[in-house]
């Protein structure tokens, strides 16, 4: 009997990998535990071990082949005396079907890529400096940090695994090599300490970029962020500012459960003295991160792990920036407004397509880009046009960004509303681990569609 060796998922968000090296060849006998290949993932290059025994009957990919989907067969082992038919195309669809539920929403985004992500927003279309090639969000962030570090010696990076490991999510890849260990510093797992240190350095005139491996760990340091970074300018009567960027992935990844899946957007957006940014595409990630690094104030820059692999065109001008506090009208429409940010932009766009197809609703989508200061003008103008509003975000519902938007809109555009504002949020529970429950927890396209139907009084 032959056994297929499948491309393994080596991280919670990995959907495909590159086969960088075979450590076995056809005809080799392998035992469980033998190293068989080196796989490059979205985060690192890792060795893969055999879990079954047999002789290598076939290798289905050449060394160097890229973007091999998770769960696709990459090799066949078995008994050489048995006659087996080897198919070059292993049935990946079957595996997914068996699971019934998609591995994670990145897969879903990938599936919809042709429809959704490749549709540039009007603003990007107008951009004359658009790159010809598409890059990932990860690369856009990296490039921007490198560009700013080249311009200003006072900019430096610190965080866990940012240097020698090349970034826990590879966002700082190559920066150590270019800028050296004085400017790219690996810290111990010591958020409270190194955050306070970075805040002190910013008080004294440096411009730190502090990476939280994820924002979940920023809670260890939240006193320094709120009480020291955000308030000192005020408490010092304007003398001491804190030009620092706190960045890293925020919100849910894929099945990492309650302690590693929290969305902090509304927490930080509540704090005067902080600016809060949540990019949604490589294009705005670049423009917004540049503004964040150049800003004289502490900026919370909420990335999203699942979006790191998202590709798109960017503006390669090393001075291109997107102003903090400006929302982007991602798609114009006349029937209802969706206000969203970060990863939920993708789901909102998907919902908008279906709302057009299935209900002939013309949706306007506003991508906030900055959460604090909030671009209320763009939201209000849109609501005055469409008369209907839903907010879509990954945060918990109580006191979310959407709650504040609903308040502003009822206060300043009450007479324009044709229906109550509806918020689409995550479930009001800690994030569960199980794949099925995780999906229930997170806002899905159907939730957005249901909310849109409700504000449009469609049964």
């Amino acid at each position, binding site marked *: 009997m032959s056994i297929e060796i499948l491309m393994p998922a080596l991280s919670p968000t990995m959907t495909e990998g590159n086969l960088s090296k075979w450590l076995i060849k056809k005809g080799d006998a392998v035992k469980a535990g033998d190293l068989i290949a080196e796989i490059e993932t979205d985060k690192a290059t890792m060795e893969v071990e055999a879990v079954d025994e047999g002789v290598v009957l076939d290798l289905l990919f050449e060394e160097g082949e890229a973007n091999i989907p998770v769960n696709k067969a990459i090799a066949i082992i078995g008994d050489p005396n048995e006659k087996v038919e080897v198919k070059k195309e292993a049935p990946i669809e079957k595996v997914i079907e068996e699971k019934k539920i998609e591995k994670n929403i990145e897969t879903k985004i990938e599936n919809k890529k042709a429809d959704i992500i490749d549709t540039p927003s009007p603003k990007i279309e107008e951009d004359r400096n658009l790159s010809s090639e598409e890059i990932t969000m990860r690369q856009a962030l990296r490039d921007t940090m490198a560009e700013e570090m080249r311009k200003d010696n006072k900019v430096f990076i610190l965080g866990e695994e940012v240097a020698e490991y090349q970034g826990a999510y590879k966002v700082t890849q190559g920066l150590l090599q270019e800028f050296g260990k004085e400017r790219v510093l690996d810290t111990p797992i010591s958020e409270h300490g190194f955050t306070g240190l970075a805040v*002190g350095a910013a008080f004294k005139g440096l411009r730190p970029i502090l990476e939280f491996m994820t924002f979940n760990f920023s809670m260890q340091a939240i006193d320094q962020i709120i009480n*020291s970074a955000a308030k000192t300018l*005020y408490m010092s009567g304007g003398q001491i500012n804190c030009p620092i960027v706190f960045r890293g992935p925020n919100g849910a990844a894929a099945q990492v459960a309650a302690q590693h899946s929290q969305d902090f957007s509304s927490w930080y957006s509540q704090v005067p003295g902080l600016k809060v940014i949540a990019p949604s595409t490589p294009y705005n990630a670049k423009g917004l991160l540049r503004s964040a690094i150049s800003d004289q104030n502490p900026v919370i820059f909420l990335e999203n792990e699942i979006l790191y692999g998202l590709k798109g065109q960017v503006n390669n001008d090393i001075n291109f920036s997107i102003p903090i506090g400006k929302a982007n009208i991602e798609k114009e429409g006349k029937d209802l407004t969706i206000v969203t940010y970060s990863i939920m932009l993708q789901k909102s766009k998907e919902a908008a397509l279906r709302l057009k197809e299935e209900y002939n609703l013309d949706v306007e989508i506003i991508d906030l880009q900055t959460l604090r200061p909030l671009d209320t003008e763009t939201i209000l103008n849109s609501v005055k046009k469409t008369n209907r509003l839903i907010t879509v975000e990954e945060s918990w519902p109580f006191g979310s960004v959407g709650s504040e938007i609903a308040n502003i809109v009822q206060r300043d555009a009450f007479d324009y509303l044709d229906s109550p504002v509806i918020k689409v949020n995550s479930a009001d529970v800690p994030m569960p681990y199980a794949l099925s429950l995780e999906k229930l927890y997170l806002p899905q396209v159907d939730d957005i569609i249901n909310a849109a139907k409700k504000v449009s009084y469609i049964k």
Partner: protein
Amino acid sequence: MKKLQKVDYIKMYSYMLKIRRFEERAAQLYGMGKIGGFCHLYIGQEAVVVGILMTIDKNDSVVTTYRDHGHMIARGLDPKRIMAELTGREDGYSAGKGGSMHMFSKENNFYGGHGIVGAQVPIGTGIAFTHKYNGEKNICRTYIGDGAMNNGQVFEAFNLAALWKLPVLYIIENNKYGMGTSVDRAAAGLDLYKRGEAFGIPGEKVDGMNVFSVIEAADKAGKYVREGNGPYIIEVQTYRYRGHSMSDPAKYRTKEELDNYKQTDPIEIVKAEILKKKIATNDEIEKINKDTLEEIKNAAEFATNSPFPKDSELYTDVYL
């Protein structure tokens, strides 16, 4: 160590006295309702900051706790503007927005005044990081109360400072009580200066009632740090005569204990030394006393006459 000159003795005496008179006046203004909120007095601890001051370079940085009035005076800041911050007026160092616990003077490299116990320790370590990053020869003096020595971020900062050899001098002001809890009820192991040992940070215990002991230790430690050897810890044994804050009657300690410390009053020690060495006469000392009293009286008057911040100031200085 550089030999102390006559002028140094006078300077020490004047500064310590100025701090004492300032704090007494602050207590009076607090009682009159002119100062609000929390107000933590430094009376009894004057020799600590003044001893350190004697070894400091003007480009060195300082960061301290909320018991900061004396630290600002020792940094050479204007008592008028310090008192005006205590009264919450527009001439205060933080324009009335910080108050007693949150005062800063960037131009004098004084980085606060921090209200959260322990928070100033990583911050001071980061300021030291900046000195090193910029290739400066300066050091950051980071003061820590004994209460903060049981706070996790302090040890995170020690680890980082030792790991990266940062030019930071940690000064533990051990005044024996973290609010109302005595050190022996809060700290497992009373030798706080040894708490850097695991990180390879040398430490030393010093009599903080005697300014000369403080100077000697601060000079040695300062040199060590300035030469690029990494951090150093001085634990200064001191005592606050007053309660933790103005609202604390200090019933957790005995009158005898307080009286005992008053026998070794830091200001009296310097005065005795000045008279013994015939650096100044009794009359000259009297003149300093009178002038200091007058200066602080003027500061109080200035601080109570300075206008409150304008209403429009509520919304300024949130962002730069």
